[in-house]
């Protein structure tokens, strides 16, 4: 089934609603990466709250999305991994290294906002003076 990709300000939100086949996952990846460039967004949130199983292909696809989106100029964060899923993943050695993960959608938005600010700070170090 198709995963809806919503646009919220500068971010894209892909909310997975049910278990996905490998083909669905590949499709999601392509759609997200294409849309990152088209909408010039700064962040991608993939919400996996509804998933109670995560296999190696799913984890690899998520990691690929994060790395590809970074190449296209957007930060990715995975949100809503269930505790049981998290533990099963590390036991299988699927640790999503190098990919940001946070608790839920709200945290994800906060995380991306913070990253955006950090980027601003890095590019404009004098910003504090502007504000007084």
């Amino acid at each position, binding site marked *: 089934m198709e995963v809806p990709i919503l646009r919220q300000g500068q971010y894209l939100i892909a909310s997975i609603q049910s278990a996905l086949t490998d083909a669905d996952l590949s499709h999601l990846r392509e759609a997200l990466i294409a849309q990152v460039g088209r909408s010039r967004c700064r962040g991608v949130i993939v919400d996996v709250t509804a998933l109670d199983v995560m296999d190696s292909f799913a984890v690899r696809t998520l990691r690929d999305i994060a790395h590809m989106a970074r190449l296209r100029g957007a930060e990715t964060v995975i949100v809503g991994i*269930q505790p049981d899923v998290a*533990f099963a993943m590390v036991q299988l050695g699927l640790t999503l290294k190098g990919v940001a993960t946070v608790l839920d959608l709200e945290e994800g938005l906060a995380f991306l906002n913070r990253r955006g600010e950090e980027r601003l*700070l890095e590019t404009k170090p004098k910003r504090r003076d502007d504000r007084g």
Partner: protein
Amino acid sequence: MDTKKSTSVSTRSSDPGAVAESAAGLLRELVAHLRQNRTQLREEWARRITRAELLTAMTEEEIFAEATAVYDNYIEALETGSFEALQAYSRRLSERIIPRGVETDEVVGIVLLLRDVLARSLFAKYQEDFGKLNRILDSYEPAANRIANTVAVGFVEERERIIRQQQEAIRELSTPVLQVRERLLILPIIGVIDPQRARQLTEQLLRAIRANRAKVVVIDVTGVAAMDSGVANHLVQTVEASRLLGATVIVTGLSPEIAQTLVTIGVDLSEMATVGDLQGGIEEAERLLADRAIPAPTRETSSENQR
């Protein structure tokens, strides 16, 4: 009666039925003897228990009361050959005396003493007739040994039951996940970590991270005496799983011994944030939280100050 017994025994090889009957007869005689001399034998037994300094946790009256009960159950088991009553009694006895610190060797000791006291009295009674003494002992000894066995096993089983119960209680008690302040959890681990407990700890921690929306977790292992590679790897997995839920884990209080072991056996903890003690861990956690949680407008100033 004596002559009849010896005849039946002389035909032992040819007529097993008669032997069985005579064995039953001997047992009856034995039981009757022990019943008759109940008071005297029981006192002798209690005296020997005191002299051997067994059951020191109990008073003399208590010893005597228990001795009476054990004695009667003992004879009954000898007589009927049924051990259920004795088993039940030894279980109840164990329940009563284990909390008072009575040891296994004491319980086995008193039962063996009773066996010896009774055997002595049989020696004294049948010293004239050596053949008969032998036959009496033939029927007495297996039963007596089995009784000793039953009581000892009952005692040990009861102890094991208590130990299991306590283990479970400890397991349930020993995994508190505490919220120190908003978004900061502490998990102090005390005692031995076996694989089952490690798993339980992880599950509880991950649930707590979700329920409390924790950002930072301090796992304090000051109270852990030893850690093998299995447990260490499990700890690494817990840290990874917590990260997937968006929480940073700081491990504190790794003892010198554990630090040496982990490095020697080559567990890779380089991915893990470790701080010397719990205080340092909480300070570090507060720093992380301050870095993350301060709302957008003031954040710039704070992070600039830190830079």
